[in-house]
C-alpha cells in the first residue's frame, strides 16, 4: 500500500464499491429512520435528527483518530502515502464536525429550548474538536514547503490527539459544575430495534461514504505529489508521451 502507484490503482477500484454500498445503506437507513421508526416517547419526531447527527459526530472523531494514526505511521515509518491521507481527511473531518455541531444545535432548539447549551459537554468538546481541525488546516496552509508542512502538521496532529482526552475530561468536569437546565435524555440504552437498525445503517453507510470521499481526495493529493513521476505522466497523458 505504501507505493503511490499501487495505492492509486487500488483506490480507483475501491471507490465505486465504497460509494455505492454507502449510498444504499444511507438511503435505506434514512427511509426507515424517517418514516418507519416509531416516534420517541419523550421527544416525539424531533429525535429523528439522530440519523444525521450521530453518524456526523462519529465520523468527526473517527476522522481525527485516523489522522492521528496516519501521522504516527508517517513520522515513525516515513510512509509518504500517510501524509496524503491526512491531507485528504482533514477538510472532511472538519466538515462532519461542523455538521455534528449544526445538527446538535438544531436538535437542541426543541429539546433544550436553546440553540446552544454550554451545559452539554459533548457539544462544547465537539466545538474544540473543530478548532483542532481548523488549526491543522491553518498551519498546513501557511507552510509552502511540502516536506516541512507534512512533518510539522503531523506533529501538531499527534499533540492534539494526546490532548483530546484531557480536553474532553476538563470540559465534562466544567459542565458538571455548570448550572444548566436539566437535560432530557433519550430513553437510555434500551433503544427500540426499529430505531436502532436504521441508525446502525446510517453510521455504517456514512462511514463508507466518508471512505469513498477520502479515497477520492487522497488520490488527487497523491497525483499532485507524484505529478513529475513517470507512471503519473503516463497515466494522465497516455499515448501523447
Amino acid at each position, binding site marked *: 500500500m505504501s507505493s503511490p502507484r499501487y495505492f492509486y490503482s487500488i483506490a480507483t477500484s475501491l471507490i465505486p464499491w465504497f460509494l455505492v454500498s454507502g449510498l444504499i445503506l444511507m438511503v435505506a437507513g434514512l427511509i426507515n429512520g424517517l418514516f418507519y421508526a416509531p416516534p420517541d416517547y419523550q421527544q416525539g419526531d424531533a429525535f429523528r435528527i439522530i440519523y444525521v447527527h450521530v453518524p456526523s459526530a462519529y465520523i468527526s472523531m473517527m476522522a481525527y483518530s485516523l489522522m492521528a494514526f496516519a501521522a504516527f505511521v508517517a513520522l515513525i515509518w516515513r510512509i509518504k502515502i500517510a501524509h496524503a491521507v491526512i491531507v485528504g481527511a482533514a477538510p472532511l473531518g472538519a466538515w462532519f464536525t461542523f455538521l455534528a455541531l449544526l445538527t446538535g444545535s438544531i436538535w437542541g432548539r426543541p429539546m433544550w429550548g436553546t440553540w446552544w447549551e454550554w451545559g452539554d459537554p459533548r457539544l462544547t468538546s465537539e466545538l474544540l474538536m473543530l478548532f483542532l481541525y481548523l*488549526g491543522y488546516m491553518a*498551519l498546513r496552509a*501557511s507552510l509552502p514547503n511540502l516536506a516541512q508542512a507534512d512533518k*510539522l502538521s503531523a506533529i501538531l496532529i499527534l499533540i492534539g490527539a494526546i490532548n483530546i482526552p*484531557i480536553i474532553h475530561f476538563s470540559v465534562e468536569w466544567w459542565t458538571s459544575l455548570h448550572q444548566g437546565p436539566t437535560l432530557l435524555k433519550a430513553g437510555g440504552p434500551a433503544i427500540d430495534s426499529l430505531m436502532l437498525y436504521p441508525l446502525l445503517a446510517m453510521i455504517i453507510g456514512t462511514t463508507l461514504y466518508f471512505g469513498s470521499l477520502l479515497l477520492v481526495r487522497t488520490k488527487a493529493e497523491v497525483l499532485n505529489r507524484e505529478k513529475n513521476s513517470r507512471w503519473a505522466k503516463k497515466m494522465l497523458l497516455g499515448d501523447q508521451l
Partner: protein
Amino acid sequence: MNKSNNISLLSGFNAMFRRDCLHCIKNPSQLLNPLIFFVMITAAFPFAVDSSKSQLTQIGPGIIWIMAILSYLLTLQHLYLDDADDGCLDYIILSPQPLPLLVLAKICAHWISSGLPLIIVSPIIGIIYQMQVDTILVMIATLFFGTFALSLIGSIGASLTISINNSNILVSLLVLPIMIPILIFGARTIGLYQAGTTTISGLYFMSAYCMFALSFSPFASAAALKIGSE
C-alpha cells in the same frame, strides 16, 4: 580532546538558561509590554461591565485567566523566532547537547521572563477585582502551575511556526484549543474557592497537567525546530 564534549548536561542547561534570561533583561520591553497589556486590559474590563463588587468577584477569575493566556500568546514569538532570525538557532540545534534539554532551558527562561512577572503583578489585579487575600493566594497558586504549562504548550506552537513570517495569530490558533483545560481549571479553581468549595483537586489537576506537558513538550518542540530550520 574536544572541549565542548566535556560539558555536562547540567552546565549546558544552565548556559542556555542564563543566556536567555540575560537576553530578556537586556530587552526589557519584551518583558514589560505584554505585562502592561495584561494590566491595562484587565483594568479596562470594569469600565465596560457592571462594576459592582458582586459582579466583579464573579467575572474576575475568568477575565484574569483569559488575559493571562492572551498576554502569554504575545510573548511566544520571542521564544524561538529571535534566535531563528539571527542564526543562533542553527548553532543551538547543531550543539552536542541534546536539543530537548536546551529547549527545556529556553522554556524555563521563558517562564521566568513571562510567567513570573505575571504572577508578581497578579495581586494588584486581584485587588482591582475585589478579591480577598486568601483568594489571591489561590489565584497565585493556579497561575504558578498554569503559566508553566502555558510555556510548555506555547513552546510547541512557537516551534511549529518558526519558518513562517508573521505567525503570531497562527500560533494562537494552534495552541488555544490545547490550552483550554488550563483555562477551565485555572479560572474555575479560583471561582470554586470564592464559592467556598474544595479547591485542592483543581490544583492537583493543574500540576498533573504541568507534568504531563513536561513529558512531551520539549521533545515535540525539539523535533519541530529541527524540521522547521531545515
